[in-house]
C-alpha cells in the first residue's frame, strides 16, 4: 500500500490581507493626522454679583479702568488708564500696577483691573494685555461691558 506523503514544511499563514488592512490604517492615520498644537489659556472673570447687563460707564476715578481703542484708519491702538493715554502696554501696566498697590494699601484687598476694550479692537492686543498682567502678577482682571449709553459714548 502506498504511504501518504507527509509535508514536513511549516504551514505559512497568508499575510496579504493583514498587510492590506495595516496599510489602509496607516494611510488613514497619515491623512487624518493633525499634530497637537500647544495651546494655553488665560483666566478672567465677569463680575459675579452684577452680570453684564446694563452696567453704566465706570466712574473712572473710583476704579482702575483700562480702556483700549483701535483706530481703523491709522491701524493704531490706544491704551488708556482712566483718562490718561499710554503709548504702549508696558508703560500702561506699570501704572496699573501702581494704582492697584495704592488701592490695596488703602484697604481694598479685592481691587481688580476693569478692562473695557472697544468693540472693534482685535483679540491679539487684548490677550497681550492679559498676558502682560499675568507677567506682572496682576491676577484680578475683570471685563467691563458697557451699556447703551457707554457704547454711544464710545462711538463718539
Amino acid at each position, binding site marked *: 500500500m502506498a504511504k501518504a506523503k507527509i509535508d514536513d514544511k511549516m504551514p505559512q499563514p497568508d*499575510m496579504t490581507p493583514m*498587510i492590506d488592512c*495595516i*496599510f489602509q*490604517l*496607516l494611510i488613514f*492615520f*497619515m491623512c*487624518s*493626522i*493633525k*499634530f*497637537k*498644537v*500647544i*495651546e*494655553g*489659556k*488665560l*483666566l*478672567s*472673570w*465677569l*463680575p*459675579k*454679583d*452684577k*452680570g*453684564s*447687563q446694563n452696567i453704566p460707564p465706570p466712574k473712572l476715578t473710583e476704579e482702575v479702568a483700562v480702556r483700549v481703542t*483701535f483706530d*481703523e484708519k491709522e*491701524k493704531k491702538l490706544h491704551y488708556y488708564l482712566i483718562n490718561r493715554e499710554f503709548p504702549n502696554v508696558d508703560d500702561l501696566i506699570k501704572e496699573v500696577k501702581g494704582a492697584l498697590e495704592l488701592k490695596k494699601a488703602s484697604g481694598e484687598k479685592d481691587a481688580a483691573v476693569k478692562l473695557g*476694550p*472697544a*468693540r*472693534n*479692537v*482685535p*483679540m*491679539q492686543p*487684548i*490677550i*497681550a494685555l*492679559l*498676558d502682560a498682567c*499675568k*507677567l506682572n502678577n496682576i491676577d484680578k482682571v475683570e*471685563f467691563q*461691558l458697557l451699556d447703551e449709553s457707554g457704547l454711544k459714548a464710545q462711538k463718539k
Partner: protein
Amino acid sequence: MAKLNVDQVEPSSFDMTPMIDCVFQLLIFFMLATDMSQKELEALIPPKAKFAEEVKSDKVSTRLVANIVHEGLDKISCEAWQEMTMLDNSGRRDEILKNPFRCLKPEHWLIRIRKVNFKTPKDLVLRLKEEADLEREKDRIGNVYPSKRVIMIRADFRAPFAMVEAVMRACGDPQVAMYKLEFGAMMPQPGQD
C-alpha cells in the same frame, strides 16, 4: 552533467518581516500622535500669549469652548479676508502680519460651539444655559445661582472684541450666570520667543 530539476527549485520569496515591523512602528506612531480630542476646536489662529497656562488634557473633554471664526468665503464675500487667505496660501505670512486686522466687521464672524453656529444672542443664551445648569453653586448671589462651569473663549487673533463681548453678555445673562472665563491662546513653541 546532472540536469537541474526545475520542480525541486522553490519559488523565490523575499522576507516580509522587516517591512511589517516598520509598518507597525509607523502605524503605532500615527495612532499615538493623532489628536482626536480636538473635535470642538475650530481651525483658527489663536492670539499669542507667552504666559498662558497649558490646558490640561484631563479637562479637555469637560470644557465648553466657544470658537470665534471668520465665516467661510463660500458663504460670504469679504475682500479683506479673501486677500488674507490668498497671502496665507502663497506663504506670504509676513505681509499678513504687517496688517492682520483687516476684517473687523462683526457680521463676518461666527460664534461656533461644537460645530454649531449661534447667530442670535437668544440661541446662544439657551445653549449656554444648558451647559451652566450642569453645575450650579449652592449659594445664591442676588437672584441667581452662578454656574461653576468654565467657558473657554477661543477667538482668532484677528477677531473683533465685539464677538467676544457677545459671548460675555450671554454668559452674564441671569439665566446663564457663567462668570469664569478662559481665553484660548497659543503658547510659544519650544525654541521660539
